[in-house]
């Protein structure tokens, strides 16, 4: 049957199971938008900035595991997507971005709003396309979704000239794909798995380092089985948080710059690191030359290029985490690493890391802990970047699988609001809390309009410290408190929310924290709580930049005497 390119796109999106698209239109993507009403199954959510569309697609994808979709027009529409695409690339998030492009005869002529978006996104996509042929659109969409979702997931961009959307062609959705250069290895090599099993049986001080790969491949059960059978402590990366229940006796928090001191100490003292679906990011490893100096390393990852990239590896296993772990679990025997576990428990007692100081002011950590208590841990937490992110990751206890959504690799301020929007759209039955920084919140604040218009019931908690807090912390610690350009003049966020018809409240007293959270949760729609928190609170522990994990700083520089022994596992 003959169809227009725009119809072929819509038909193909439906074949791929797409339910929702975030986007903003413009001249050269109008044909596609004009076709949307023919396909009511495709819900379009008009965002207020294309960066929001990309982050919302990411939030949707991160929360559901499905491919998120965003649309933008050519030129500035496309360039506005770039931050979100880069974010998805660094955190292996499957999204498909479709951009309009000027008509084919104008390409290369610097036409109005022509930009080489495939060139721009070359290094930040898993793959991208400039589609020049209407008849090939079905195949391109199928490939794009396949590439985005399989292997190591990632963003794929399709640039679509206006005439390609308008031209007609026969539509039949291809059954098979021709991708001779793309064959992700899913099954681990049996002899490598055997070697890993042997190292595991010989190790006395093993540590599992679990990353987002565990979540992506859904290997929760397999990871638990490995950890429990051999009694191996589990430390996660920031993005690995919630791949293993944090209340589990074998859970020892997460590692890295603001990870738990005992997690970093465990990694530092380990004689075997079993790295699973993680990529040894420098924020996680600290100074690489000082990373786990006494450990052999088993590295399981679906991306062969990650192996040996940052850290030397003794036993590499390329494959899907779930498949590799289930094979590995067949070869391991029950073991008890009693002394090692005892040692770690000792360290956890001596360096509890995540206590909350007793004080009358509202500590941001306290706000996070209250959100945890009021949600009983049954929520999806989406964070901004900076101190708010670290406190959310530290003070919420993540037992629920895949319950933390955070921008890890790119560290994108402004991620929080649109991503939480996408997460809530993808998981309407979950409680979604957006824990925002007052700085980052202002970077994508316009999505309040989208949230209000579509009645997306995200609960927003701004940890309002009046600063670009994390940078202020670095100025405090490493630049003799010269607070250059970090103080923020924040507007009244509640008034702003009200202008968008979103109810909210500002909380200035500690005793009002809990009730405000409850109020937010009892509200049917979106709700904003502006928590005026202690402005100069710092995040600890901290591994200073360039230091090794063993050099973790625990004590705040400012003398704070009284630490409250509260809820520290």
């Amino acid at each position: 049957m003959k169809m227009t390119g725009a119809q072929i796109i819509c038909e193909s999106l439906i074949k791929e199971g797409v339910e929702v698209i975030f986007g903003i239109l413009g001249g050269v993507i109008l044909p596609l938008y004009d076709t949307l009403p023919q396909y009511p199954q495709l819900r379009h959510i008009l965002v207020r900035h294309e960066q929001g569309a990309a982050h919302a697609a990411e939030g949707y994808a991160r929360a559901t595991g499905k491919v998120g979709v965003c649309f933008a027009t050519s030129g500035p529409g496309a360039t506005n997507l770039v931050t979100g695409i880069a974010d998805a690339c660094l955190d292996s998030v499957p999204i498909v971005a479709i951009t309009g492009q000027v008509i084919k005869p104008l390409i290369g002529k610097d036409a109005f709003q022509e930009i080489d978006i495939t060139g721009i996104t070359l290094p930040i996509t898993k793959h991208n396309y400039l589609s020049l042929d209407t008849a090939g659109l079905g195949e391109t969409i199928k490939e794009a979704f396949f590439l985005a979702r399989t292997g190591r997931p990632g963003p794929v961009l399709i640039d679509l000239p206006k005439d390609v959307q308008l031209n007609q062609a026969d539509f039949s959705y291809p059954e098979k794909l021709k991708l001779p250069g793309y064959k992700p290895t899913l099954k681990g090599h049996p002899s490598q798995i055997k070697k890993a099993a042997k190292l595991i049986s010989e190790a006395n001080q093993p540590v599992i380092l679990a990353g987002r790969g565990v979540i992506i491949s859904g290997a929760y059960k397999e990871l638990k089985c490995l950890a429990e059978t051999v009694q191996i402590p589990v430390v996660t990366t920031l993005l690995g948080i919630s791949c293993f229940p944090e209340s589990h006796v074998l859970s020892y928090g997460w590692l890295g710059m603001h990870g738990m001191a005992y997690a970093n100490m465990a990694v530092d003292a380990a004689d075997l690191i079993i790295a699973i679906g993680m990529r040894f990011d420098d924020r996680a490893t600290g100074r690489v030359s000082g990373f786990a100096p006494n450990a052999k390393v088993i590295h399981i990852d679906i991306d062969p290029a990650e192996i040996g990239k940052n850290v030397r590896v003794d036993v590499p296993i390329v494959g899907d985490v779930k498949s590799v772990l289930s094979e590995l679990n067949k070869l391991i025997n029950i073991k008890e690493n009693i002394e090692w576990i005892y040692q770690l428990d000792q360290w956890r007692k001596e360096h509890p890391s995540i206590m909350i100081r007793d004080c009358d002011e509202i500590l941001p950590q306290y706000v996070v802990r209250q959100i945890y208590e009021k949600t009983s841990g049954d929520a999806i937490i989406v964070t901004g970047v900076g101190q708010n992110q670290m406190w959310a990751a530290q003070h919420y206890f993540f037992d629920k699988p895949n319950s933390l959504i955070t921008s890890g690799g790119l560290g994108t301020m402004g991620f929080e609001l649109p991503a939480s929007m996408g997460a809530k759209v993808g998981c309407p039955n979950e409680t979604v809390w957006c824990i925002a920084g007052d700085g980052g919140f202002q970077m994508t604040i316009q999505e309040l309009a989208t949230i209000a218009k579509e009645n997306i019931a995200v609960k927003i908690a701004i940890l309002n410290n009046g600063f670009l807090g994390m940078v202020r912390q670095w100025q405090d610690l490493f630049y003799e408190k010269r607070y250059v350009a970090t103080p923020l003049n924040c507007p009244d966020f509640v008034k702003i929310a009200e202008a968008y018809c979103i109810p909210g409240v500002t909380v200035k007293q500690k005793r009002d924290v809990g009730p405000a959270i409850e109020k937010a949760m009892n509200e049917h729609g979106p709700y904003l709580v502006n928590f005026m928190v202690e402005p100069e609170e710092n995040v600890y522990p901290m591994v200073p930049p360039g230091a090794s994990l063993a050099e973790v700083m625990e004590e705040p520089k400012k003398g704070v005497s009284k630490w409250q022994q509260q809820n520290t596992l």
Partner: protein
Amino acid sequence: MATTKHALVAMVTDKPGVLNRIASLFRRRGFNIESIAVGHSEVPQISRMTIVVDGSTTQVEQVRKQLEKVVDVIKVSDVTGEGTITRELAMIKVKATSTNRSEIMQIVDIFRANIVDVSSDSVAVEVTGDEEKVHSLYKLLRNFGIIEIARTGVIAMTRGGESSSMMEARQPKSRTKKN
């Protein structure tokens, strides 16, 4: 080839922008390309690239793996070492006078190179060989004064009956079955 140099043979699909994808990857990861040569392969619609990188400045295995991640790249092999034939073609234009032209021709003869152009004040020499041979000839000709030099970059192939591109397996199976 000097021991630290590695020749990577990449089989890539003939699509617009493939070269750009590869160049972009090298730039962005800070890999240094010594030379790159591209041409058709034995399989239609698949090009063969020979990329030479210096192993002392660049992690060759990382380069290989990152290249393989490019969706349009089908296969990458490191064909460095004893079992490899490498060749490069160079054209070297040198200053020449009637008095020293014969001397140049003698050198060219020794290297089994060819003279492809002669003018009143220059000769253009064409030489094929491994990098060392090309370099040795260049060193000798330098004394006469080099006007310009053009090199194709190295291409490489393994010795013996195997294909260094390992593409056979990807050709239609029926062909091998019939024989």
